[in-house]
């Protein structure tokens, strides 16, 4: 069976959930080979990849990959795709991985499909566009398919693979080393799950009213083990950091449950959350467009409803 290369997303040595989703998808298309680029590789990571079907694990952890962004990883994937005659390359639809895929596409003269939510037989990719209003099926017609898949769009299924480790050395070109990382700045993150990976997201908008009041959104999120998101009105006002913005110019999330409090549901916000499986809205305006999407909605003041909900959840635990 031909190899399907899966670029592993990892932080501090931990494999991210989206990678397990990609491996689950890759198993339907061929023999999954995980590609680990950068530092932090461990036997534990190898085991996790194998448990989800990786037949091979290619490891390239040289300093060249750690000290530069995007370009060296594209060279690594290009080398592997050619050497192994891979049938497809899957990456997560994150900003960096999409850029890696973009450069890879040019190197291999191969087509790229971004922000895919499913892959059918014959490598036909499913997209959800225009803020979830239209479903499109597309396929690559030249070269091997390079597909960037939206996190949380495929349920993870475990299935053992051999997980055979193979060290890879890449001769990273000088051109790919042209951008140097001078410093990596980590901003306070807290213990909450990452926004794009979280099974539950609780978001606040202009209706929250202030930065201080975002604590009621955080408390609800924590009671559910959820990530916190925000509308652009809230991030523009400086009530919550921009990296948590959900929507067209923020993150796209596809959680099992999305709770929107004090968010009107503008098209640009919907573009980032419309594929959530279950949507709950709390808004004092019965005409707010977010209610058109909601599986359950409460017309009321979030300052009353949200704390009561948090308390109820605590009681029922």
């Amino acid at each position, binding site marked *: 069976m031909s190899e399907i290369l899966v670029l592993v997303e990892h932080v501090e040595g931990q494999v991210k959930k989206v990678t397990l989703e990609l491996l689950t998808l890759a198993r339907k298309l061929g023999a999954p080979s995980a590609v680990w680029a950068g530092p932090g590789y461990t036997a534990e990571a190898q085991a996790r990849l194998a448990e989800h079907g990786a037949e091979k694990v290619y490891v390239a952890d040289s300093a060249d990959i750690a000290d530069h962004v995007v370009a060296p990883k594209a060279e690594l994937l290009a080398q592997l795709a050619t050497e192994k005659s891979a049938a497809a390359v899957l990456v997560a639809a994150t900003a960096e991985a999409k850029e890696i895929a973009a450069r890879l*596409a040019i190197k291999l003269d191969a087509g790229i499909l971004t922000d895919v939510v499913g892959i059918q037989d014959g490598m036909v990719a499913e997209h959800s566009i225009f803020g979830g209003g*239209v479903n499109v099926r597309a396929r690559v017609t030249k070269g091997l398919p390079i597909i960037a898949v939206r996190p949380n769009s495929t349920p993870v299924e475990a299935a053992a693979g051999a997980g055979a480790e193979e060290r890879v050395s890449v001769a990273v070109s000088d051109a790919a080393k042209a951008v140097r990382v001078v410093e990596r*700045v980590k901003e306070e993150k807290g213990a909450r799950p990452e926004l794009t990976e979280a099974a539950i997201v609780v978001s606040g908008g202009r209706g929250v009213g202030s930065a201080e009041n975002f604590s009621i959104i955080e408390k609800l999120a924590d009671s559910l083990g959820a990530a916190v998101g925000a509308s652009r009105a809230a991030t523009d006002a400086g009530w919550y950091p921009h990296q948590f913005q959900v929507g067209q110019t923020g993150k796209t999330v596809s959680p099992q449950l999305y709770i929107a409090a004090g968010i009107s549901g503008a*098209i640009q916000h919907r573009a980032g959350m419309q594929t959530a499986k279950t949507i709950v809205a709390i808004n004092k305006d019965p005409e707010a467009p977010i209610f058109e999407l909601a599986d359950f909605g409460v017309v009321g003041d979030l300052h009353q409803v949200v704390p009561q909900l948090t308390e109820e959840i605590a009681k029922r*635990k």
Partner: protein
Amino acid sequence: MNIVVCVKQVPDTATERKLRSDDKTLDRDAADGVINELCEYAVEEALRLKEAHGGEVTVLTMGPGKATDTIRKALAMGADKAVHLVDDALHGSDALGTSYALAQTLKKIGFDLVVLGSESTDARTGVLAAMLAERLGVPQLTFSNKVEVSGETITAQRVTDYGYDRVEASLPAVVSVVEKINEPRYPSFKGIMAAKKKPVTTFGIADAEIDASQVGLANSWSEVVDFAAAPPRAAGTIVKDEGDGGVKTADFLASKKFV
């Protein structure tokens, strides 16, 4: 510094956007064309860099005839001149084709710095800056919320999930910007009047030495198989808060096994 800013005209997200039933491409006639919002931030950043370091700002757009509206908007903000790449052969180009056509044009017109938005509201691929950097063989400083140039050195803050990376390279380079980088200026009346007299050069594919076999719908690296309106979500239950809205929500979450 010779700065080229790539701007794109996109259908207004406030109107209903459609795909064409004939060739399955974006229906650019169905909705009003507006400048891609992130491109306004790119224009603003280009203007600020010019104000700080001198030089010239050229607007580059690939798009149909009506994209001239978008070019005028960028000129009214303060850009000096524009190149409009327009040719029927370009219709339906995908990201690879578009990046090839823009890269050929950039080689022709020359640049020290190319500035793009990090994403367009229609294609939403967010890949164009990386593709241009790859094709042009120059460094990419993308998803930037801060850009500084000092002599031949360019530094930027690349936004990441954990915060940001400070990255550094030498000019010439490709930059893409996120919306937190600046606040785009509104064109002044004077700016709007001045824009009418600024030079706009029209390029066809031959002018930019674009190989016709690398662009257009028929030569794209991917194709749309089919598309359909997403099935509407089933109507949900909406309740009015009578002092028990939180409890009712908890009941709903429990019924779905979230609590």
